């Protein structure tokens, strides 16, 4: 089973890299970009065949390693 985890900075945490990207887009003439948030996409190949068990396992992976929940939130998807 394939899965995808998306990790983003929590709203309210200043994303200095996203801000730099936004400025660069403005420099290139893309004037309508009012905000950029940068995150991570992690794709996983799982041996698990039960969807609910896979989702529970993904959440545990996020809590233990894939996300730092002090500053980041995460979303899991089974593909």
């Amino acid at each position, binding site marked *: 089973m394939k899965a995808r985890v998306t990790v983003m900075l929590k709203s309210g*945490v*200043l994303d*200095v*890299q996203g801000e*730099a990207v936004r400025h660069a887009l403005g420099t290139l003439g893309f004037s309508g970009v009012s905000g950029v948030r940068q995150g991570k996409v992690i794709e996983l190949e799982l041996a698990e065949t039960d969807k609910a068990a896979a989702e529970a396992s993904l959440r545990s992976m996020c809590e*233990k*390693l894939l996300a*730092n929940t*002090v*500053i980041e939130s995460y979303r899991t998807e089974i593909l």
Partner: protein
Amino acid sequence: MKAAVVTFPGSNCDRDLAEAFTLAGFAVSRVWHKDTSLPEGTDVVGIPGGFSFGDYLRCGAIAARSPIAAAVQAHAARGGYVLGVCNGFQVLTEMRLLPGALMRNAGLKFICNRQTLRVATTASAFTNGYKPAQDIVLPIAHHDGNFTIDDDGLTRLSGEDRIAFTYRDNPNGSAADIAGVLSQNRRVLGMMPHPERAVAPLHGGTDGAGLFHSLMGGMALA
């Protein structure tokens, strides 16, 4: 007094940290990240600077889950001392031994410089050899030193006098100019500046030596 310095793949200040402990009179052992225990009788664990595991995923994230991590956490839970410098500070926040997180510098640049710090509390075994509000100069060398914490966490840190060092001229956007913080029991210190790189005249400064001597003196008394 016994110090143990942990080396991860990508650590690059481990020898410097071991040397700084040695100069202050500690018997120092070196510990590999795949070890599962600390040497018997370890008083203080040093988590060095560098780029453990290439900063993959997040700075310090993988080191904080390596085999030695459980032993370091157990040592801290027993009331043992832990000093994390630079990447070591990042590792300690990832282990949740210290609050907050270290994010990319506000200016996005890697900064390698000498930085004036204020000793924000002398009420710790790490800082009691300094004078209250003393200014010291230590090197910094980091890309991800922007200390980030929520408002409640910051209020708590400052209310409990757990901010160990602050920057005089904030180089990286850290909340409340924070350069180093203490755990609730004041025995775990994480700091971005490098005290181990300022312990001998040849380093260009000796302001870091006080930290290691404080620790040696404080632990000898305890």
